[in-house]
């Protein structure tokens, strides 16, 4: 009984963390068709922004939920203005550019922070449940990702900006026809996507050993989750994160973490083979 509760928490955490690490990429790819290979590095910078802010005496939650997304969002904005905006509609070139950027960020982080930056501890203590210790911070991550999904839905569904964004997503000249500059919309989208990546990196920072090359661990997983989700932004993200999270955690507990990761990858192959357009290419068509 105690064990099954612990496992349930871990499984939920697995799903939640997938949602979290994929959200930023999903926004940027889903709306702009830009594969941001520097996504992992945006997360890494979110982590460093948090650590730095906490070091300066900022409350840890403020640092994670406000400062890190803002800082990384601004970095994203600069990158978009300097580089990405010259490359819209050129998938291949954005890949090269963002790969180059990821190397630049790794190099800069190494020069600024070095390799032995002291991280932050989880602000929420672990607690005992029956005979087991449970990581209390897992609940925080689960809640953050639920709130994140709801907020994304609310923004896209309920606000004017969301409406325009959805229009742009379906037809890039739509916004222009409605009198909005697509340039501005792309800029805002990239800002939001980067901020979400920064948020993910910040929230996960207390659980990982952060080094400048940490980002590389996320990009593949996030990319697989986003693409497998298919065209619908939120439904795709949630459905694929849930399927992969369940599969990988099941095998992780049944066998080992390595088998869990391999199971995730095999699930992705099977899924895309049976649904060549991703999950939402077949189900939940036309949903958000």
């Amino acid at each position, binding site marked *: 009984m105690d064990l099954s509760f612990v496992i349930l928490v871990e499984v939920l955490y697995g799903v939640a963390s997938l949602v979290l690490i994929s959200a930023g990429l999903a926004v940027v790819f889903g709306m702009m*068709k830009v*594969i941001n*290979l520097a996504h992992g590095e945006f997360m890494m910078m979110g982590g460093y922004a948090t650590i730095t802010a906490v070091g300066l005496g900022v409350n840890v939650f403020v640092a994670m939920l406000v400062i890190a997304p803002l800082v990384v969002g601004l970095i994203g904005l600069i990158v978009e203005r300097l*580089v990405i905006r*010259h*490359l819209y*509609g*050129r*998938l*291949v*070139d954005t*890949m*090269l*550019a963002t*790969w*180059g*950027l*990821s*190397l*630049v*960020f*790794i*190099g*800069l982080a*190494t*020069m600024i922070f070095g390799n032995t930056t002291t991280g932050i501890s989880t602000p929420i203590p672990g607690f005992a449940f029956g005979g087991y210790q449970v990581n209390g911070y897992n609940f925080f991550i689960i809640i953050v990702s639920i709130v994140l999904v709801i907020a994304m839905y609310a923004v896209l569904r309920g606000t004017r900006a969301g409406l325009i964004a959805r229009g742009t997503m379906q037809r890039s000249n739509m916004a222009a026809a409605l009198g909005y500059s697509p340039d501005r919309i792309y800029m805002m989208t990239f800002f939001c996507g980067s901020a979400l990546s920064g948020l993910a990196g910040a929230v996960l920072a207390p659980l990982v050993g952060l080094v400048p090359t940490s980002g*590389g661990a996320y*990009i*593949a997983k996030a*990319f*697989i989750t986003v*693409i*497998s989700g*298919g*065209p619908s932004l939120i439904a795709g993200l949630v459905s694929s994160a849930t399927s992969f999270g369940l599969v990988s955690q099941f095998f992780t507990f049944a066998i080992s973490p*390595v088998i869990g*990761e*391999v199971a995730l*990858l*095999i699930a*992705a*192959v099977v899924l*895309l*083979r*049976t649904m*060549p*357009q*991703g999950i939402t*290419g077949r189900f939940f068509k036309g949903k958000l």
Partner: protein
Amino acid sequence: MGRNGSHDVIITLVVSALLIWLLPLMISTYTLTVLVIYGMLGLSLGLIWGFGGILCFGQAAFFGLGAYTYAIAAINIGESTLPMVLAVLVPAVFAALLGAMMFYGRLTDVYLGVITLVVTLILFKFVNSTAGPQYVIGNARLGGFNGIPGFQTLNVPGDPSAYIWGDPYFYVCAIALVAVFLLVTWLLRSSFGRIAVGIRENEVRMGLMGYDIAARKTVLFAIGAAIAGLAGALFANWGEIVTPKLFSLGQSAEIIIWCIVGGLGTRFGPIVGAAGLAYLKFMLGQQSMIDNTLIMGLILVLFVVFLPRGLVPAVASLLNSIFGRTKRKPRPRRMRTARHG
């Protein structure tokens, strides 16, 4: 497409002969060898991506598979001829199966990219977790993260003690690259190659003409994998060790970068991109002032902003504008945007 095929072959041979003669005077043959091998690896992706429209995020899988096949076979056989053949065949067969699975499943664009990426990751994770003594193929320990060192390297066929290494090995690799280059040239000029380009341009139309798209893409994919496998085997011989890093995502990304930097849709571009960037990396390693990762990243970003079509097309159009020749018009690289839904 001109009919002056033999003319082109002669030019290729003369230019390569000159390069093979001149380059060792400037760069050590050992470094040149690996540049040549990377060039071949770049060409393998340049073929299937630039001319077949197949964006493969996992070309490193075939490279690594070729290298590991060679290493494992060489340990078990103790002679290099058959392992070399196997190192070409195994990736080709693997790619044919993978390709058939993908192309008959009508996977395209980024979805295809993700599958190839995932397969590469699976191979990487598998090989990376074989450190234990239970992972053995014949006499070969797979060795996990540390890889497999100490296998029989290339020898004169039939004589295991007559090793080919040092300068002669460079010439073997260089000639292999020239052979592969000519093969690719011939392939692209043949009906098969022209049809492949047609498929890259418009799959639906080619299907409506009566071409079996899936079968043709599978064959092209397997040819690309065979070339990558050959490059892998040559790499294994060169480095005398194979490690899981050959399968890694970073390696795959690097191959993609080579193609873009060199110029997609050209035969020469990926070779130039691969050799150029690898040599740049080699040169950078001799300085310790600024973090090399940073420099490499900056170069790539500047590149994509200022030379978006890649090096070879840019140089070609520059030459054209200077000499006013219009005979060989560089085809602008097609930017495939991801189609969704």
